[in-house]
């Protein structure tokens, strides 16, 4: 919702404030108002413009959906996934033999299906062995797959 705003020029505002009794005819008032004016905006709404009513229920619905969306995207701590479960099964052996390398995990067969120094190598290895084209990837011994 947009409210039209009219800002008085400084000299009119001074005159009005004096007329309303806010400012007195002395030098101190002038010093105070000079200090205030650059940082403050004095204005009034135009009465002629119609102000639309707020649909409170629509605002609440919108806010609720935005909160839900945020909760969905930001899950806080990372959840333990199927790929993590499969990795844990082979973790000890993998960390002994292939520390730092990339493994491709097939969560359906619960197996490590590809291994390589890069994601591409592990992916091509897994694709060749299984004929599938989507896997999960982990870097052996690390919580992340790449550092950026």
């Amino acid at each position, binding site marked *: 919702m947009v409210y039209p705003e009219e800002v008085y020029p400084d000299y009119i505002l001074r005159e009005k404030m004096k007329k309303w009794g806010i400012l007195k005819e002395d030098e101190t008032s002038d010093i105070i108002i000079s200090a205030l004016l650059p940082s403050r905006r004095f204005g009034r709404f135009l009465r002629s413009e119609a102000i639309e009513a707020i649909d409170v229920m629509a605002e609440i619905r919108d806010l609720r959906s935005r909160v839900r969306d945020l909760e969905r995207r930001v899950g*806080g701590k990372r959840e333990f996934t199927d790929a993590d479960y499969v990795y844990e099964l082979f973790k000890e052996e993998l960390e002994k033999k292939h520390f730092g390398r990339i493994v491709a995990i097939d969560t359906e067969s619960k197996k490590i299906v590809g291994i390589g120094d890069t*994601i*591409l190598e592990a992916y091509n290895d897994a694709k060749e062995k299984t004929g599938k084209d*989507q*896997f*999960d*990837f982990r870097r052996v011994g690390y919580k*992340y797959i790449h*550092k*950026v």
Partner: protein
Amino acid sequence: MEKKTPFLERDYTYDEKNRQYFPILKILVGSKEFKKKISALVDTGCTTCIHLCKSYVEKEKLTLGKKINKEPVPFSVADGHAINGDLYEAICEINGKEEQVIVSVVDPERFFEEEPKVEIIEPLLGRGILDKFDVLFKGKRRKIAVFHPE
């Protein structure tokens, strides 16, 4: 000793906002059918091939290849944050030389534990692809040169 000639040599790009020179290369990236030219910062601290931010992919309407991961993949950002991302099998072309690469696309909104303060993530050209070539940073002369490996 035989002198090698780079197949690509570029001056560093001056960033007026930061008042610094950066090694930036223009590369073509995308699927086999549709590739688009982008500018990417040559970043030896980044271990991916090509690293993009989701908002950048949407803004530039990039058509990356096939998504190869099922579950989101965790990435570690230099400031310590962990962010989820996806991996795509794509084609990258540097000065006419094509390479099959994995493009990582992170979504800073899919963070864990603490929200990262991310303003802009420029496309990064990381070690995953740089290690396929010989790359020379001529720091004093503010030039970057890319050679075919032996």
